[in-house]
């Protein structure tokens, strides 16, 4: 039982990272009808920005964190203007290919600057963790879970309680109608890209101390997050979060009880099972609302 609780904690922690990246996928998908294949690279770039500011330049952790997130917001702007905006009137295919191109550009740029050796980033806290009864709570995982919970509430408040959130929803449901009402569609999409880049960046910074900071970390996280959005029901915000958490828990238990080398395999086994038996995902029927 102790082990189960311990694994559950770790699983939810890693699942929260998938959930944050998945949320970025879903928000961009809803606003633009395009899957952003560079979403994982946002996490990777943010982790490297942390390494630059916090490790290389030796700036305080919190300051590096704020600047890295600011950098991600800027990257969101550049990404929107450089990748999405010029192709916005085209079909989804050119845009998807452009996001794949951007993803390759981002990872190779970082590779050119930093080389292939993985970097190490310290966690936010000096204390490694606390023992709570039978369960050891790693401080970084605690932080990840706390930030994710806070963001879920923020997300709910922002999209459900503010007029700006409603305008973003309206834009994602019917761009032409939104523009007829005087909603600036290009501004709404810009906000979506900034928010998604910051979310992805946050996930990368939070997970970096748990993993190594490497060029590949983005694509690994993004694949899991993508699987999470499909399991949750593509395009559904709650589904992305539930799917992410579920995936983290499943792969952690799979690794502990069945096989460590096949850890990543479990996530994709679940994905394949969902694609065969419930392709619309857990919250799939709600996706139809968007149509």
């Amino acid at each position, binding site marked *: 039982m102790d082990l189960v609780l311990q694994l559950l904690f770790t699983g939810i922690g890693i699942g929260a990272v998938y959930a944050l990246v998945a949320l970025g996928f879903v928000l961009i998908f809803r606003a633009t009808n395009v899957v952003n294949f560079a979403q994982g690279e946002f996490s990777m770039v943010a982790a490297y920005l942390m390494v630059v500011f916090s490790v290389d330049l030796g700036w305080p952790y919190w300051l590096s964190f704020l600047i890295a997130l600011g950098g991600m917001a800027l990257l969101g702007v550049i990404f929107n203007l450089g990748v999405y905006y010029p192709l916005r009137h085209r079909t989804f295919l050119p845009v998807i290919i452009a996001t794949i191109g951007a993803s390759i550009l981002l990872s190779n740029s970082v590779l050119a600057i930093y080389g292939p050796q993985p970097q190490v980033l310290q966690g936010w806290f000096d204390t490694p963790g606390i023992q709570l009864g039978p369960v050891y709570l790693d401080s970084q995982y605690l932080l990840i879970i706390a930030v994710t919970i806070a963001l879920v509430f923020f997300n709910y408040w922002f999209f459900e309680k503010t007029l700006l959130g409603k305008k973003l929803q*309206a834009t994602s449901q019917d761009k*032409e109608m939104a523009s007829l009402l005087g909603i600036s569609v290009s501004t709404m999409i810009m906000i979506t890209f900034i928010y998604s880049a910051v979310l992805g960046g946050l996930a990368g910074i939070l997970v970096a101390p748990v993993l190594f900071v490497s060029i590949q970390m983005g694509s690994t996280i993004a694949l899991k997050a993508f699987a999470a959005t499909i399991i949750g029901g593509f395009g559904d915000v709650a589904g992305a979060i539930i799917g992410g958490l579920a995936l983290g828990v499943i792969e952690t238990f799979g690794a502990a009880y069945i096989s460590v080398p096949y850890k990543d395999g479990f996530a994709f086994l679940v994905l394949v099972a969902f694609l065969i038996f419930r392709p619309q995902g857990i919250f799939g029927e709600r996706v139809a609302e968007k149509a």
Partner: protein
Amino acid sequence: MPLLEIRNLVVRYGEIEALRGVTIAVEAGQVVTLLGANGAGKSTTLRAISGLAKPASGEILFDGESIAGLGPEAIVRLGISHVPEGRRVFPGLTVKENIMLGASNRKASAAQISREADAMFDLFPDIRAFADALGWTLSGGQLQMVAVARGLMAKPRLLLLDEPSLGLAPVIVQAVFRIISQIRKDTTVLLVEQNARMGLSVADHGFVLETGRIVLGGKPDELWGNEAIAAAYLGGHAKASA
């Protein structure tokens, strides 16, 4: 000077010339109805006015200023509100949220907009009970009410209404037209209708479009009086409600 004046408007969709030189004028305070068969160019005319379709040539003057070529976001800020074909109520937002977003063309606080949306239910009492229902749960008539209420939230000087009666039961059509005759007290309306009888019943002036051209214009009784036109475009009794 007319509030809206369109001269020789040409709109093309690729190779197809949807409008081939449309000229109409809408005086302030009037209800003007645009009649015509499917594909005659009625919706395209409205889409060109609101900025959804780019004119290939011709002029669109609103209050004497050219608005041809402006984007929809800029045009609605000038005071032209377009309630498009098919209602286009946001399915995942509630009725009240839909109506509130109608004020996106002007500066007002969220609290102010919320109060105005509540007041809108006095004009549309039938949808008051559905204020918190999501758009996709509504019936066609309710959707039409929401769409018109949302259009009015822009406080438009000119309201463009595209086929408000389409697909609605006759009793609902009458309710919608009762609302149009109330709106006209404060707002100029350019109405597109296939239902000629209903469309002309509220109109001060009517135009008949045929394959991208205006073939006839005049007061409703003049249009009814023109026998050939009445038979061809306005329909007999059998076709009038079709």
